[in-house]
């Protein structure tokens, strides 16, 4: 494998194209992803185990949103990102590294940032409507991987995907 700089990729079969996620605590923010042109994820409610918040920041415009999975707007969202958005940004930085998150959102981080909250401080977006249902269903699909029936089929194609020491 090679570093993810792309040099010498053309004629190699085994290349770490995407660095694997870095380990992080999942209790507060069980789901984070860079997908559909957004940093989006699910944040567990601090007070009610049955409730989760769906938070997102759009790449480019930096519009943000936070609501419960039943589309009830988050009470903490008063013209500025709520604590759920801060938690989401912090965990995204842990999982992907600040560079990858900033590149995806198209944020200029200049001389570097310490955490997700500093990243949020550099955004100049406004609250904007976003569908919590889409993100929440992606989260449920994500969870459903852990419920897949066991298959004993050998997977020879995984020789293209060796486990690495990344995140050690």
């Amino acid at each position, binding site marked *: *494998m090679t570093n993810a700089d*792309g*040099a*010498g*990729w*053309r*004629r*190699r*079969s*085994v290349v*770490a*194209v*995407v660095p*694997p*996620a*870095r*380990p*992080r*605590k*999942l*209790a507060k923010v*069980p789901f*984070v992803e860079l*997908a*559909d*042109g957004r940093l989006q994820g699910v944040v*567990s409610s601090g007070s009610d*185990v*049955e409730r*989760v918040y769906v938070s997102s920041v759009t790449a480019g415009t930096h519009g943000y949103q936070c609501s419960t*999975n039943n589309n009830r707007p988050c009470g903490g969202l008063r013209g500025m990102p709520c604590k759920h958005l801060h938690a989401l940004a912090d965990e995204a930085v842990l999982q992907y590294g600040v560079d990858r998150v900033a590149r995806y959102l198209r944020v200029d981080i200049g001389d570097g940032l310490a955490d997700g909250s500093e990243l949020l401080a550099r955004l100049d977006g406004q609250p904007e409507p976003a569908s919590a249902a889409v993100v929440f269903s992606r*989260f*449920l*699909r*994500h*969870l*459903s*991987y*852990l*419920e*897949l*029936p*066991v*298959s*004993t*089929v050998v*997977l*020879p*194609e*995984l*020789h*293209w*995907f*060796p*486990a*690495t*020491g*990344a*995140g*050690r």
Partner: protein
Amino acid sequence: MRGAQVARLRAVPAGLSDALDVVAGFDDALTDGFGRIGDRGAAALAGLADALAGTPLAGPVTAAVDAVTAGSIAPEHLAALAGARSALLGAAHDALLGQLDEALGRTRSPWTTPTTGSGEAPLALAGARAWWHEVAVTGWRGVDHEVLSAAAGVVEASLAVPELRRIAVLLDGLAAELRACVPVATMAEVPARRWADLWARGVLLTQGAPSTGEASTVSGRLLPLGVDVHSHDTAVQVQVHAVLEPADGGPALLVRTAVAAAKVDTIVGPAIWRLLSGHPLLLTALAERRALAVTDLPLRGGDLGWVDDRVQLDEPADPFATARVLLPAASAAATDPLDRHPTGIAEPVLVEGAAIRDEDGTLAVEVDGERVALAVDRLPAAGPLTADLVAAASACLGLMRWDDDRWLLQPLAVRAGVKRRTVQAHNGDWACGVTDPKVAKEEARAGDAVAVLRERAGRLLRR
């Protein structure tokens, strides 16, 4: 493995470079897309047809190349092209493995398992086939969010059918890479060989339900050599390489057996072992370095099917001793023709009396003055092997791999001098829990990712 054996790997098998050049031309054409094939792409495809002249594929491949060049691609044309590319790399696999077998003095029984015709094709297969077709027309450079959301649908449908697990896992791994690279058109260099490998395999796998073939059964004592860990965001597989001493007194066999589980991207490092807790005897055998008594396990080529209730724990067995005493005489088996590709080469070897050299940050093992590069980027975070530990090794049990025009040794276990003590470390040491106090403490601090997500799934999924 001795220096004289390493030296015999230096020669490049006849025809290998030419075959790989033809493959590279094809891969560049696929990067641009068969939907808008230029002069260079047409020449590359003609080269592929030339390379297959005189083989049973010659007719279908020539027809396919003509169709692509004329701009009218039917599904059977892509199947022929994928087959042609796979045949070339299959031949490369055979040449390289033949070279390695000769160097090691390893005997290999030919492939005899009959390949049964494909059974009825599940509906999800048609969707998968259509997706591989679409990306071939678009090319990697044309992959956009629309193509990727179509892939997500195909993955979901294939995951629901256990027989299509190979297709689902392959496509999910590729789609994650494409998603991270979109827009691919702006990438400086596309991993053309890699993605074309996965494309060709995907096309072949969607030609029908994968044939299972008739498996014979085997009983005896299974002595693990080491474990190779594979994973991408949503799948993990551990493949144990082992020597099987058949109960009927037949010659020892070099086999491998694998178990896999679905996962999510946030389950990484030692946590992956918890996903495999349904196979406790395999994990215990790895963690405690013990042999297993196996009864009537299915054997297809060198692939031993794992069946939990036909296995019992046996005495402790040092993998280094197994490699020294039993591996040299163990007989290997040929690979399923569909799976033949240089990337699939993973042959256990033992290197003793070796020195580890650091050449500009790249580790290599040197034995009798001959060097092999070490694939230290294949040391899984799920186990105790690190580049530092490997650098201190005096013996290494690993897998011979081939990529990027060279042989590499992927360590599965090392014997190393640490603080004037000789220690052994194996990839599977943490299969039943992390034994390194420092790493265990970090693990405990991060919490049990699997348990957290299962709790969330239990609360949120069934409502």
